[in-house]
């Protein structure tokens, strides 16, 4: 399944801004922009599923909210420490949106 949630990332937002701009200056049609966006969805889903092997663990002092709706998990945490091998990063607030990486159309439920 190709999720659209990566559109709301820096990369996705920037792409959409650029597409908006190209449409307005009539360099591309809205149909082509949509095609680019769908290709972005496909590419980023595939790349994140197959190319990324970095493992980061984290521990939060507090899990403020969690919910599971439409097969999407959402967690809101505070005072979180990320650990990647020997590196640490501290953040005050963290929101995690997690979808089933295998998607619905690749498996029978």
């Amino acid at each position: 399944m190709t999720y659209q949630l990566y559109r709301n990332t820096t990369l996705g937002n920037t792409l959409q801004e650029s597409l908006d701009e190209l449409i307005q200056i009539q360099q591309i049609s809205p149909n082509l922009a949509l095609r680019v966006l769908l290709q972005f969805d496909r590419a980023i889903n595939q790349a994140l599923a197959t190319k990324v092997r970095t493992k980061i663990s984290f521990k939060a002092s507090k899990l403020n909210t969690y919910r599971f709706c439409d097969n999407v998990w959402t967690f809101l945490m505070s005072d979180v420490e990320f650990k990647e091998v020997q590196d640490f990063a501290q953040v005050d607030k963290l929101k995690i949106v997690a979808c089933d990486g295998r998607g619905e159309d690749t498996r029978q439920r």
Partner: protein
Amino acid sequence: MSLLQKLDCAPQFVAAAPSLRRYHMGTSNKMEVSAEQVEQAVVEFYRDPVAKSGLNTWLMQAQHSRHSWTFAWPLLDPRKPEEVQFFAGNTVYMKVSRYWHEVPKEEYEPLKIKILNLIAQYSNSKVVLNRLVKSLGAYVIHTIQHDWTTAIQDIITMFDPGTVPGIEPSTALNLLFSILTIIPEELETMQEAMSINSKDKQVITAAVRNSHQSVLSLISQVMQAAQISNVIKEVVLKTLNAWLKLSLPLSETRDLLVALIPYSNYALLCEPVMEALRTAVTDVGTYNIPNTVMDFVTQMLRLRPVLEEAQHANDENTASLVYSLFTSVVECHSRLLLQCALQAEHQATVVQVVALLLQCAATPGQYPTDETTSNIPFAVWFTIQDDIMTFEGEQQAELLQLFQPVYLKLVDTFIQKSLLPPDNALSAEEKEMFRCYRQDICDTYMYAYYVLRGDMLSHLEVHLKDAVVKMQSDPTDWRYLEAVLHAYSSVAETVAETDNFYVPRFIQSIPQIPFSDNIQLISVALTTLGAYADWLNYHQDHMHHVIPLMVEGLVNASLVGAASQALRDLTLECPLTISPFSQPILTSCQRALEQSRLDSAETERIMTIISRVLSVGKDQPTIMTYLNATLTPYISRLSQLKDLMGSGLSREQHNELVSLLKLLSCMSRHLNLNNTAVEEDDDEDGTTRRHSQAVSGGPQPLLLVLQQLMPLLSAIASKASTDQEVIEALCKLLKNSISTLVDDCVAILPAILEIIPQLYEASLNPAILDLVKQLVILFGREGSQEANMGVLLRMVTTTTLSRASTDLWAHTDAVHGCLALLTASFKKTPNLVSAHHNHVAPLFHLGVEALKLPEEGTVRSAGHFLSSFILLSRDASIGCLQPVVTHNTETLLRTLMFCICNSPRHSLSSFSDVLSALCKMYGDDLTRTFKTVQADESFLSPRVTAQHKEEFAKKVLKNRGSKRRILEAVTDLALIGRGLAGTDYGAQTRGFH
């Protein structure tokens, strides 16, 4: 009248003139584009690199013009240069696919004949032929619904080998299948390229799909024909795959697909056969026909001889294709397979499929140098485990029992496959691939644990014993032991803290392991033990097995990294249980700091360990004695560097200064005697206030350290007031200190209040604003400090207004920080903001101007600020805000509407929030203001008309209670302002924000 004649009468093409005179199309009059001109332009395009850009523009314009229907045909002449023929072919494809609406209905047939004749003419010229075949594909898609309903059958008849005059039968066959492949492929792209909507696409797809039986029958005949070459059969299989993607029913394709299995023995045909099988068995439609799928999967097991033959011949490619196919089957149908595994008649099939994938995982040799297939089924082990857990009761128990030997075998396999290769055996790139491979193994151990639980730990224990025996007999044979420790480490966070049998035995065995001073092995052991920190917190009695290895590691330069990491994990997870071991830990930390040449990360980790250990169960004199001994050299060095700052620090000295500040920052975060005994009380206002007084009653040791340190920090601040790195490290140190000391930091507050203006007036660094925010929230409502906080806030706002307002773009992060600070202040300490009346209006203007900035964070911050401002402005006790909003409603509304139509769309929710607040608190004013804005016709024109503005105002005012509906109205206006309303792209990106 012919098609060409008709098109000649079409409106004449006018194009913007490129710079090239010869191809000038006229700036003031209409003129024709002749085939000769196009031919010359194409030839020149390929010959003249200088003129390329201008010619490209001209040729593209020519291609899109109605003239291209005229000039394309004469250029499709084999006597013309090849590039000219290609350009013409491409033009025909583009016109047929995208400009179909320009073709009159009565010209459909002549156009078809023209394309078909050209295909026959160009049957031996691959490049141009491809364009013409695509043109025919596009033609079929436009006409199959109403005008050429028998297109597929007609094409099969037309290109029947042996009946096409002048074309070799093999060429005709190739041509026929190329056309049959292109048609479903063109269907995929038609929605975007041909402007066909999704409803029509479904109808057209159904029309094409209706002809599938004749295509399948043809494919079957050709595949069975012995005299036809494998080269042609490869093309035929590609056609089959293209048609299978149309979701053909497996019940109708199954026999043909099973008959194809023997062809996978031929190298050329293996990949297309596998691809066709995969497309068919993983199609969404197969979910509704479980019996057919299981029957098909059973038939697919006939691929095993192909696999065996490939393995025998060291043909990794074929083996990979077969394994990938079965991996896809399990990933797609795992739940069905598990259901069938519970049925006697299908169990054997499932077991065989899983065994095949186990065999794949165990492919002999070193990954990735000897083999690259064992990684293929990684995802399968998660999928099976995950789906087993969705079964309940007896069914789950039965499945767990069935899969227990599978996962145990998998653990054995992974231990072998994760053995580290000899040093220098892998290149840097291969090492990275192997690291990823081991990471996947690490994840899969975790999934195996969910299936096996104690059985897995028992199994690992057997491996551990074997590995220790091997190591004892041959200390150079340490890689097996390392792989077993890696497996233990992988499940560390998964094992239940209640495990009282296997984990204790593992922990107890650590001191018995003959490490033989093997650094790599000890590092892995340390990392593994660190990973069990959470378990150790619940099993204090086992702590003494692990501490010695860690403290010894600290004083070994090669092990200090892993040891400090493990001990840090332990001190963070087990603050109380580690307390009895504080002495050896502190001694080793001290020695490590004295002896080793540590990097800054290691030093920071050791400082964290020291701070955490000192925070529990020590009296103040002991702590201070230890801190004095530990910190004195660092503070002395900091002082030296401060003295050197006057004459300028070298890069190295500068980095050292920053590292020292970060080190102190670590201490200030973790040295907290109340860390494990934080009390929370409600004060009289009902708000929660943390008390930081040490449990013993005396001041926190951190406060005593900071009281001595503040003069030095003040001096550094005064000398480095424009050094961003130093400012950020200093602010972090102060922020951590305030978080730890809470109210107790009043003692050092005067010094902090002296440092902050000094820094902020010299440099608008957002880290300073963050620090101010923390202070204002903590002390803004406290009687004794309220005035100080008011002064601090005024200093920050005055400085930001005077320095940033003149050039917001250059200070966007300071504006962001300042508005965030003010928003927090509105919520927690509104008394402070309203106390300075003369600042309120300029700050409101700053918020309005900040809405126009491009950075999402700054716009969000401005939105929060303005919303809070507006919502608070009706509060009678803060009278100074309301006139500001009333006087500026029109400016704000115009800015919001302008930004909705022009700013990046991810900020729409911020604009909507401000509008909601305005609507809620100033509904009547807003109604009047909307009318004024609507009356200004030039505002937001030409895309946004007066009617659009009126509709927007209606929607906003009507839905003043609903933030969601106001956001919808804002989104509608944003799409109108960008010319995207009514487009699929606009609809698809509505949720942008």
